[in-house]
């Protein structure tokens, strides 16, 4: 049974440790072998000074959070928008994926939850990734 979230409530936080092996795994999975992600020597010479994780891997973490909280409702009608990559995620980073329900609107027998999501790093004051998410829960699903 999924939790019934209210406005202002925080979503449960997920923690991940990022390493080069995980980034290489994402490259193999997605077919994106851009050297900025998989070649430490090349990436070390760029202004990033080292490899960085693929942006879509961060999106996968946000999807994981929403599926954990809202299950199939997210898969059948979730909307993730205004995603911003504000700081690179690097090997060695321990990141936290979380969010808050900013608003709940009632529509017939369903409720639409408007959430603000973020990926943060302990050593960074600002968020590394932000985004807005909307998901509608039918009355029968709640």
């Amino acid at each position: 049974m999924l939790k019934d979230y209210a406005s202002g409530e925080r979503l449960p936080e997920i923690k991940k440790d990022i390493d080069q092996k995980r980034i290489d795994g994402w490259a193999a999975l997605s077919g994106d072998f851009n050297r900025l992600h998989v070649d430490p020597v090349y990436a070390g010479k760029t202004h990033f000074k080292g490899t960085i994780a693929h942006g879509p891997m961060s999106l996968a973490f946000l999807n994981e959070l929403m599926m954990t909280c809202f299950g199939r409702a997210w898969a059948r009608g979730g909307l993730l928008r205004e995603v911003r990559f504000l700081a690179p995620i690097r090997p060695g980073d321990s990141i936290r994926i979380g969010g808050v329900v900013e608003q709940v609107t009632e529509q017939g027998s369903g409720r639409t939850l408007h959430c603000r999501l973020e990926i943060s790093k302990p050593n960074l004051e600002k968020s590394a990734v932000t985004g807005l998410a909307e998901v509608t829960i039918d009355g029968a699903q709640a």
Partner: protein
Amino acid sequence: MSDSKPELVFADLPQGRQFTPLRYEVTPTMVDEYLRVVGDHNPLYGDQAQKSGNRLAPPGLAAIYARLSYLQDNIMPSGGVLAGQEFSFRKPVSVGDVLTVRAEVMESYLDDKERKRVNFLITARDSKGDEVCLVRLYAIWPK
């Protein structure tokens, strides 16, 4: 991705261009690898569900080739900026589904600062032709 492929430049991206659809099957191996790399242990995707013939796949798998769908024959020039993106999940994806992903250039123009703007709509459909995921990418193209 081979560096021998030509770069995809702004002149290659007129409004209305549709790219060759990319087809792939959502296999148990692909789902397992996705879950392993992401570190996602949601029981919704577990093997137990597969025994009942309806193992759910992570919705992100429908979007994993969004970028590749317009870079099948080209490489991305360096220096571009992804100004925005949006993902709309329409229908759950199951293991065994064959997805077809098609990218289309919805807008291609120079903005008021002479930056090259390219907006893509990438649609993933299942074998029934139903939309499972829509991705909108708003890019500033480097050259």
